[in-house]
């Protein structure tokens, strides 16, 4: 073994495919008619979406009394679902922006897809706080500082308003980032397609991109700047989401560990979701050489890392509750683990902390069915984490006379099902309408695609 082998960078794309074959394989789903399986999958997700839409229509007509929210658990599933979906979105930005800044080339194969999932997850998430207001068509206006006849402005000291700004900025910037990445791909598709209609669509969406190096020069700089802006942005979004809880004075919420703990949890659940979906995508569209097993293994390592961080946070919360000596704080945590909601707590703890520890074994990290199941458990666990945080603290507040047990209704369940329906419907439509892998970026990391720099 020579020294050379240690310094050589490993290829992120297997088998050195020709550039034209990359064009073909990535644009194949756009050029071919969807098959039966696709329609079955779309049928399933649309059914879920319809169930959610019917439940939503009922909630609008009869009011949100149809949900299980009671007094004192005024924030229940809608907020749980909101935080869950926002968290799913965070993996996409982490992959596309933070890993880009760290020059992790393996991200190129999965970045586009993960960014797409970010956008769909944020869309899904934004529905929940708005419908929780009961009259969303009015709330949508009142959330923004606009000069109304009340001559009253919104409260800029409220974390809920910070959320409005954080989430809408996050959506706008993610979407912009995504679209900027898509422009060169639209141009490639425009020059490939033989259909007249598609040509017009791609001409409009590509804005007449010419792959000119005088353009690439600015383009690459903007991509770097956007990655640099998106990195603190993604950290800020879940930080602000955690402020919704941490700024309140409820025991179990009022804690400075929340921002880092929420961000780690968001990345954790997001990576699990991206990994789940990519396992299908690489199989169905034959992208095994682009989204390689190495890539999946690296994602599993991040799941292991963030899972351990979340486990640390759970433990530290307990420690601080005891160490602070605040009786209500101690009660809240003992109640979480051994009280009425202990079942939810232990589902959360085992799914998020114990099960991902299996990723210490290389064999498990590289076995697709096992990693898929583990990631599903992670998502179940992360949904329950938000449930435990929101519901246990609220159901046992300072005044024992107002304690109550929260029970979800069938409408709550239908709305959660509908949110999955919406998310996966958007994902399915995405796979058939846009290139799910960034053509230009992948071409740039194939072996032999960059000059050899003989003079160096």
């Amino acid at each position, binding site marked *: 073994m020579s020294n050379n082998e240690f310094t050589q960078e490993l290829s992120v794309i297997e088998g050195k495919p*020709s*550039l*034209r074959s990359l*064009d073909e394989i990535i644009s194949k789903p756009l050029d071919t008619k969807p098959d039966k399986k696709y329609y079955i999958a779309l049928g399933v997700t649309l059914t879920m979406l319809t169930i959610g839409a019917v439940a939503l229509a009922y909630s*609008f007509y*009869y*009011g949100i*009394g149809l949900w299980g929210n009671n007094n004192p658990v005024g924030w229940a599933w809608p907020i749980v679902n909101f935080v869950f979906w926002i968290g799913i979105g965070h993996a996409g930005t982490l992959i596309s922006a933070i890993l880009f800044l760290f020059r992790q080339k393996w991200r190129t194969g999965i970045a586009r897809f993960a960014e797409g999932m970010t956008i769909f997850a944020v869309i899904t998430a934004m529905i929940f706080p708005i419908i929780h207001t009961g*009259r969303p*068509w009015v709330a949508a206006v009142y959330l923004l500082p606009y000069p109304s006849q009340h*001559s*009253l*402005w919104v*409260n*800029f*000291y409220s974390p809920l*308003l*910070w959320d409005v*700004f*954080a989430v809408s*900025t996050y959506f*706008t*910037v993610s979407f*912009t*980032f995504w679209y*900027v990445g898509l422009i*060169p791909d639209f141009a*490639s598709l425009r*020059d*490939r397609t033989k259909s007249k209609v598609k040509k017009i669509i791609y001409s*409009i969406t590509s*804005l*007449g*991109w*010419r*792959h*000119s*190096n*005088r*353009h*690439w*020069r*600015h*383009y*690459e700089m*903007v991509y770097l*700047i956007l990655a640099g*802006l*998106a990195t*603190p*942005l993604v950290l*800020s979004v879940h930080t602000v989401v955690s*402020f919704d809880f941490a700024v309140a004075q409820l025991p179990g919420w009022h804690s400075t560990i929340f921002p880092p703990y929420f961000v780690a949890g968001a990345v954790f659940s997001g990576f699990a979701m991206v990994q789940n979906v990519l396992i299908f995508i690489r199989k169905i569209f034959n992208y095994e050489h682009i989204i390689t097993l190495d890539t999946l293994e690296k994602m599993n390592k991040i799941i292991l890392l963030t899972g351990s961080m979340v486990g640390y946070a759970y433990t530290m919360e307990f420690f601080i509750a005891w160490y602070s000596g605040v009786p209500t704080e101690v009660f809240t945590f003992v109640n979480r683990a051994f009280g009425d909601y202990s079942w939810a707590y232990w589902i959360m703890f085992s799914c998020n902390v114990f099960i991902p520890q299996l990723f210490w074994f290389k064999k498990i990290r590289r076995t697709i069915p096992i990693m898929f199941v583990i990631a599903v458990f992670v998502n179940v666990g992360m949904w329950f984490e938000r449930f435990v945080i929101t519901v246990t603290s609220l159901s046992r507040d300072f005044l024992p006379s107002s304690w109550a047990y929260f029970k979800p209704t069938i409408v709550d369940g239908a709305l959660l099902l509908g949110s999955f329906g919406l998310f996966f419907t958007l994902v399915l439509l995405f796979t058939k309408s846009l290139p799910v892998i960034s053509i*230009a*970026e992948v071409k*740039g990391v194939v072996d*032999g695609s960059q*000059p050899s*720099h*003989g003079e160096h």
Partner: protein
Amino acid sequence: MSEKILYSYSALFDTPDKIIHAAKTVAEKGFKKFDVNTPYPVHGMDKAMKLTKSKIGWVTLVFGLTGTLTAVTMMGWMMAVDYPIVIGGKPYFGLPGFGPIMFELSVLFGAVITVVALLMFFLKLPNNSHPVHDTEYMKNVSSDKYGILIEATDPKFNKNEVEALFQELGAEKILPIYFDEEEISFKPKIFDKKFIGFLVIVAAITSLSVYGTMNKVLYMIPFSWMSEQGKSIPQETSKVFKNGSDMLPPVKGTVARGYLPYRFKGQPDKAAELLVNPLLPTEENLALGKTKFNIYCSPCHGYLADGKSRLNGNFPAPPTLHSNKVRNWTDGRIYHVIMEGQNVMPSYAHQLSEKERWAVINYIRVLQRSFNAKESDLL
């Protein structure tokens, strides 16, 4: 057919090494108006083409800071100038609380305006009428070839020399690119009938949907400003209660607050003996008594309680309250008259609350005293 106008000469190459070499050579020969087109950004190309580093970062800096400033001014003006409210004991202008939104708006402005500036000012896009579009050259460079082109307007451009240069560099293919005939003689189609028809249809649909939303949809359930609510309204029938009405009669024996039944019905002597005036003749109570007396009592008894009725004989005038009889009555006895009435006088129990009755009695005592003042009162 007119003669085609040449835009540029272009060459296609196979490998990134070759295109870097070609770009370097062309730049060194002194050409200015040339460009390299590659399916993805090739490392080291900027240096080979002698291009400087992009300055677009300044746009981000300036507009990012504009975002910060916008956020501070907006929140400061709204919270501290236009409508100051104390929220949680925080100062009107509290910078720490403004922090998150200042950050978000900086990122928002910085990111969005940078991209707009990139596309519109740095790249001059959208531009679908550039001569290279729809050429064989473009189709290759957007897939797997590396292309270089030298524009015909470059001062050093010479057809044969450029062609020879490309051949020398090892070009796989050399292609001339011409301006598109259609695009040279392109006329804007703004006044096209179809386009105007399209605009009219869009305008009609927009106005109809806005009219419909504002005047119809917003007045339909459940958008109708909460006019339809699942609640009980007085005088409506009910499916919940046994009596079929939304209003339930009070439980038997219920007494409303402040409406205890009068204990001495028909027993003036007992009232005189047992009822005690709980109200002190304070200035405030006397003022209340005066107000109520002037409203309810004075029309018949007169402002001075001397029986000078303002009703001018429509009713028999009541006797004066300054008689010895009334002066010697206890407060409780007068209270009884207010509660039950006397002779022609009806009960005033419903017009006056308990406190007001005692206040009126106190005021009557003041009037009586003023008519029979002692010398000592003058001091």
